[in-house]
């Protein structure tokens, strides 16, 4: 099977190279048959890579440890669900996932545009096939997932315990879908520049892909944050780590792009800006993939000094030169058809929103690469999370304010009547939120958080007003019930109302972030059974230690050591929490018992989660007092082995030793260090993410067909007339 897998990769590499050549020949010659052949080569690529993906996936599910990557990232005791996800926990597996998703999305994009933009698509096909050739080349020449081991081990190393979380099953495919989908508008932008077709058609053709890329990447980022919060044992969801930042960069420029293309579609403006944004987003997506693998920046995600750094640098430099050269070459064609009439207009709000997004991206880029920039001047220095917070928070507040006002003001120029009619009520609500929170909420001493809450209130009130007005107009025409009018309104203008839902989701998410970071109480405390800690009105009593040996399929999977905590508030017991720490075995043949405690540990966090507040706990048991017993049992097992005792007897001694250590721990009075966190409104971060996802899906959903669109336009005109009369 490994041979077939290798053959698939080589074939994929060859097909991708053919796709590049055929696309370029079709562009130069204008021959449609060659363009169709290039397009079909991308379909074939998707087929071949699907076979390769199935081979690797089935090797993981079958525990085929003859594959080096399976032996290194899975084991008999890895749960089935996580065996499927383990494919992308390795360097080579994740690269295969990348190029497979690229081929799938490229095929879809080329299929949907097969009868449109016949001059642009051959170049776009060549660009997409070029990306595929690069990644397939990496898999063929640098990091093959189909390497086989000479001696097949009886068991594998297992999946890193930290990755055993449901979010991790979805997080990488979501991120990679985002990255790879951004290559579609990138490729079409290159095609449009090369063929001088720089009107809005390439934007219309790829807008949905940009939106899908933005949505997938955003959901991937939120899932990563959720994983960090629930799994990593530090209680945070964002650390401004270089690899986190790498995923945020294309998301920020992509968000700017999906806003500014509306200006080009409606008013023929910002052409240079749009094309530059989409090219930058495509390059930043590749940069993100590079950062994850190069090890050039110190990150919580260790990726080692990989050999893949140089090819990625070559690719990024090539893409940069190509992009800048093309934009400069076609600058005369990229002139705006109109100018901004007034800085108090919807297009100006969009422009400022774009500047803020790009400004944020620049800040994140600058902070992420600051160590390399300063090293070039002599001394390597780093900036930490407080620096990012200090600069990004005001920009984010500005963004929420602009997202609130932009949908309410008119194109071209705001009038006093427009302001009074559309802005007064939401603004009043925002002011009311600020006043109430200042008077009774106790947030006046956190001005940034207060500003975020007030502006989020303004934004949400504005969106509610827009929905209510639209539904009222709909009811005036059709006498539908309110819910039906609302559904009908959204169905008829999915892009607009889906966008509003996304705004509400982002505002909700930012409220959660502002509240949980500004009003969080965190404490690390060392306790033994019977001790009580106090934090933010909560009393946490360490009731008793816990311990168990977890066996799966007849093998010891891990040891869980933890504590039972009784959490009370005002004398009332709220819940009993049992945070534990799982210890997974390390490869230690001469010290099997202590080896169980020197592998990968994993915090099993416990919390009281609620809409108003999360109370979060993690534990770190002190293993020092257990070391003596571990050494004793290790020695006993070694003696048995030296005396030639049967293996099952040695296994029995190992099991007895482990069980006794765990029992001693659970019946003793061991010290543990606890992290206790009380954070308000964290749940709203995840709820905001779900709203964003829902709004994004509404925006992405295919529009009604041409006939329905015409009917909708007629309906809109009628509504406008009615409103004018009202």
């Amino acid at each position, binding site marked *: 099977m490994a041979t077939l897998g290798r053959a698939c990769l080589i074939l994929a590499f060859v097909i991708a190279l053919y796709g590049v050549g055929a696309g370029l020949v079709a562009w130069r010659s204008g021959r449609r048959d060659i363009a169709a052949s290039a397009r079909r080569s991308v379909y074939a690529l998707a087929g071949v890579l699907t076979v390769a993906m199935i081979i690797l996936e089935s090797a993981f599910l079958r525990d085929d440890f003859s594959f080096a990557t399976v032996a290194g*990232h899975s084991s008999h005791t890895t749960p089935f669900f996580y065996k499927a996800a383990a494919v992308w*926990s*390795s*360097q080579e597996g*994740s690269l295969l996932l990348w190029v497979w998703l690229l081929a799938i999305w490229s095929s879809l994009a080329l299929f949907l545009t097969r009868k449109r933009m016949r001059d642009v698509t051959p170049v776009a096909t060549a660009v997409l096939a070029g990306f595929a050739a690069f990644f397939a080349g990496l898999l063929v020449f640098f*990091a093959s997932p189909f390497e086989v081991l000479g001696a097949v081990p009886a068991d594998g*190393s297992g*999946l*890193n315990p*930290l*990755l055993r979380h449901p979010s991790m099953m979805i997080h990488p495919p979501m991120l990679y879908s985002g990255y790879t989908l951004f290559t579609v508008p990138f490729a079409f932008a290159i095609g449009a520049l090369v063929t001088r077709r720089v009107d809005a058609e390439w934007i219309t053709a790829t807008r949905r892909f940009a939106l899908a890329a933005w949505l997938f990447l955003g959901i991937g980022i939120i899932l990563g944050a959720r994983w960090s919060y629930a799994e*990593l*044992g*530090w209680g945070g969801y964002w*650390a401004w*780590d270089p690899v986190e930042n790498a995923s945020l960069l294309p998301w920020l420029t992509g968000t700017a792009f999906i806003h500014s293309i509306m200006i080009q579609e409606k008013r023929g403006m910002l052409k240079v800006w749009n094309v530059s944004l989409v090219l930058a987003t495509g390059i930043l997506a590749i940069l993100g993939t590079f950062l*994850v*693998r190069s*090890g050039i920046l*110190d990150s*919580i*995600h*260790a*990726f*080692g*000094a*990989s*050999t893949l750094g140089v090819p990625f640098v070559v690719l990024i430099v090539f893409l940069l030169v190509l992009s800048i050269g093309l934009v400069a070459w076609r600058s005369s064609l990229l002139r705006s058809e109109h100018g901004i009439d007034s800085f108090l207009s919807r297009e100006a709000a969009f422009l400022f929103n774009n500047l803020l997004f790009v*400004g944020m991206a620049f*800040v994140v880029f*600058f*902070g992420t690469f*600051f*160590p390399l920039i*300063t090293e070039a001047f002599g*001394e*390597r*220095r*780093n*900036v*930490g999370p*407080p*620096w990012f917070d*200090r*600069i990004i928070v005001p920009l984010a507040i500005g963004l929420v304010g602009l997202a609130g006002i932009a949908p309410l003001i008119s194109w071209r120029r705001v009038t006093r009547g427009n302001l009074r009619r559309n802005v007064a009520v939401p603004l009043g609500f925002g002011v009311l939120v600020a006043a109430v929170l200042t008077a009774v909420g106790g947030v006046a001493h956190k001005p940034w958080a207060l500003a975020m809450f007030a502006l989020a209130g303004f934004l949400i009130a504005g969106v509610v007003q827009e929905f209510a007005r639209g539904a009222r107009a709909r009811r005036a025409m059709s006498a539908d019930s309110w819910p039906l009018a609302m559904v009908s309104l959204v169905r008829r203008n999915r892009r607009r109302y889906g966008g509003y839902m996304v705004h509400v989701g982002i505002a909700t998410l930012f409220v959660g972030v502002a509240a949980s970071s500004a009003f969080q109480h965190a404490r*690390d405390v*060392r306790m033994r059974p019977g001790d009580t800690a106090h934090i933010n009105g909560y009393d946490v009593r360490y009731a008793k230690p816990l311990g168990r040996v977890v066996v799966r399929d007849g093998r010891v999977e891990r040891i869980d050591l933890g504590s039972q905590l009784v959490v009370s508030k005002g004398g009332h017991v709220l819940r009993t929490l049992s945070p534990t*720490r799982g210890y997974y075995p390390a490869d230690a043949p001469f010290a099997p018992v202590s080896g169980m405690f*020197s592998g*990968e*540990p*994993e915090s099993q966090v416990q919390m009281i989660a609620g809409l108003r507040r999360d109370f979060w706990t*993690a534990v*770190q048991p*002190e*293993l*020092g007092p257990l070391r003596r017993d571990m050494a004793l049992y290790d020695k006993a097992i070694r003696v048995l082995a030296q005396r030639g005792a049967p293996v099952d007897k040695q296994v029995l001694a190992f099991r007895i030793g482990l069980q006794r250590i765990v029992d001693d721990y659970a019946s003793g009075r061991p010290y543990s*260090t*606890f*992290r206790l966190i009380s954070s308000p409104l964290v749940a709203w971060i995840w709820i905001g993410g779900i709203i964003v996802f829902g709004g994004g899906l509404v925006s992405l959903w295919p529009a009604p067909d041409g006939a329905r669109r015409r009917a909708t336009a007629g309906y809109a005109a009628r509504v406008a007339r009615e409103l004018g009369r009202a």
Partner: protein
Amino acid sequence: MDPARKRRVRLVVALTTALLLAGALVYTSVSASTEARSPSQLLASAAPGRSYQVTGKVVDGSIRQRGAETLFRVRDRNGSASIPVAYTGAVPDPFANGREVIVQVHKSGNGFVGERDTLVTKCPSKFTAKN
């Protein structure tokens, strides 16, 4: 004002604003940054009271618990020079012997004190380089 002149004025204002903002960004980042050092560099020259970010590997067998403190040594990635670090608080899950860590420290006596919540341990098995 004629449109060409208006465009020029806007461009000058925009560029000046961008330059001022970039200058402010550089200033705040330099003033808020910490020096990144290897253990051998800290051994050679570390001023008491000053904060440094050290990157290296946890020396095998050096991890000990002393009350709420975790004591360990950090060595150069490719070398044996090491410094003792006393860290208070919860350590990240992947923290272990031989693991690569990043931690903010300041010199105290003959050793170094790790600053709370600054210990970052690299995630070990994701995309590790081939041996």
